[in-house]
């Protein structure tokens, strides 16, 4: 594994009025890591993802991806550099069939916003899309509009769309929220299996401590826009500070 960090965050700050959403966060992600980000509501977890992906712009601080500063770039450019992302509320093309969702995800990074001439649907691309849906266990739903998927399926498709980009870094925002208790582990098993096979560096925001304990290799704890703990799950989660902030 290479020693160069994939993502370096330094002294990130951002305020929403009186609330400090980021109060000088610094964080380094190495290639191949699988990191869980936890913290109470309003700790700035989603804000951190929004800052990295360019949806929000920090007031100060720097973000480097593979050594390149990315603050100020629009989301589509940052995505193009190799950072994929899923959302708390899945961001899908709800009225389009599931297969088309993935086909668009495959075609868009290859100049989909400028190519008005070559057909989007090629046999090769369609095979890739079906294979990806197979990996995520969505092969039964290919022809149905994404809006008809159950919540777990929507979450999976949301990640599948991000994964279709073959990102170097994948940021998942609460992949198991809104999913029933008995579906959580199968969903995470599916996700982790795919992502590990592809060797994608992953950071995921999560509320369920059991999920974090079971899947994360490293845990970062956020509170009021600060990183208050960072380390292996066993140490961080059993540490009193982490526990206290998570409300038990």
């Amino acid at each position: 594994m290479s020693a160069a960090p994939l993502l370096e965050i330094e002294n990130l700050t951002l305020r929403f009025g009186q609330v400090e959403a980021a109060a000088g966060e610094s964080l380094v992600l190495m290639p191949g890591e699988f990191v869980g980000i936890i913290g109470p509501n309003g700790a700035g977890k989603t804000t951190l993802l929004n800052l990295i992906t360019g949806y929000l712009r920090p007031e100060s601080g720097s973000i480097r991806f593979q050594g390149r500063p990315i603050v100020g770039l629009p989301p589509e450019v940052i995505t193009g550099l190799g950072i994929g992302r899923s959302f708390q509320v899945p961001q899908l093309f709800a009225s389009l069939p599931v297969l088309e969702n993935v086909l668009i995800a495959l075609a868009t990074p290859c100049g989909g916003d400028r190519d008005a001439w070559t057909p989007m649907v090629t046999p090769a691309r369609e095979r890739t899309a079906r294979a990806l849906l197979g990996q995520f266990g969505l092969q039964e739903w290919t022809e149905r509009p994404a809006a008809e998927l159950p919540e777990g399926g929507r979450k999976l498709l949301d990640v599948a769309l991000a994964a279709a980009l073959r990102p170097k870094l994948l940021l998942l925002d609460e992949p198991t929220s809104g999913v029933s208790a008995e579906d959580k582990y199968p969903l995470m098993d599916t996700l982790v299996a795919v992502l590990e096979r592809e060797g994608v560096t992953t950071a995921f925001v999560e509320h369920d401590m059991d999920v974090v304990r079971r899947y994360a290799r490293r845990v970062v704890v956020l509170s009021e826009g600060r990183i208050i703990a960072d380390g292996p799950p066993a140490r961080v989660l059993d540490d009193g500070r982490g526990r206290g902030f998570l409300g038990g």
Partner: protein
Amino acid sequence: MSTLTIIGVDGVVFAAWLFLISVGLTLIYGVLRILNIAHGSLYALGAYTGATLLLAYFRHDLWPLGSLAVLPLAALLVGVTAGPLIERGLLQRMYGRDEILQLLTTYALFLILEDVMKLVWGTSPYYAYRPYGLLGQVSLGGVVYPGYSFLLVGIAALTGAALWAFVNRSRFGRLVVAVIHDPEISVAMGVNLPRVYVVTFSLGAALAALGGAYTAPMIAIVPGIGVEVIVVAFAVVVVGGLGSLEGAALGALIVGVVRSAAVHLLPTLELFTIYLVMAGVLLLRPYGLLAGERVRRL
């Protein structure tokens, strides 16, 4: 110096008229989130109703100044008839549907109302200019202005103040604000949403009609007078910020003064002023001067 005075007076008089014709549009958009293309038709409806009432009034040889009080009656009439009819009959079926379809619905309404007015009032012009000369003349900067122009300014100011008080001080106004903020939560809190919608739309319609009614004594009322008004009102409201009362006032003032300056100093540009102001403002502030950008939470 005197040219500046004239520009200022003309600008304010024109701004008063602009405010009257556009404030209803912004109110309706703010609450119902529907851009009412038929707004100009409601203005025309107000002008026709106002003229009809004025003609009836003068037929009875009553106190001439009383005619000025007949005009709000016309607005009220349009508000309580056309307002609920359009909102209940048509628009309520469109809530929550595609914005494009909402826009097209009001466009269809505009086409229908134009011909309905022709069927009701015919194609011959209506004149009701008697009130225009009733208030005497005022000389400002060497130029004579009719008192009526200042009545218009007064009515616009009064309307604006009354609306502001209504929205910010009355109980119903607070309900309206709640609905603007979040229709779903306000329903959960027991707000009668259909009632808020029908009252707001009728009020907006009445305001359009008020603008029309007070314009009636200045012009010959003929089919088609509403068409231009739509575009002008849109521009004013977009400059100020869609859905903002203060924005409508500010937009009207800016457009009014810029246009009046153009008429006096650069008549060739007069035609474009309204669009230039609109394009310029939107380039700098994409959602108008007094409207915040709504950021979507992820």
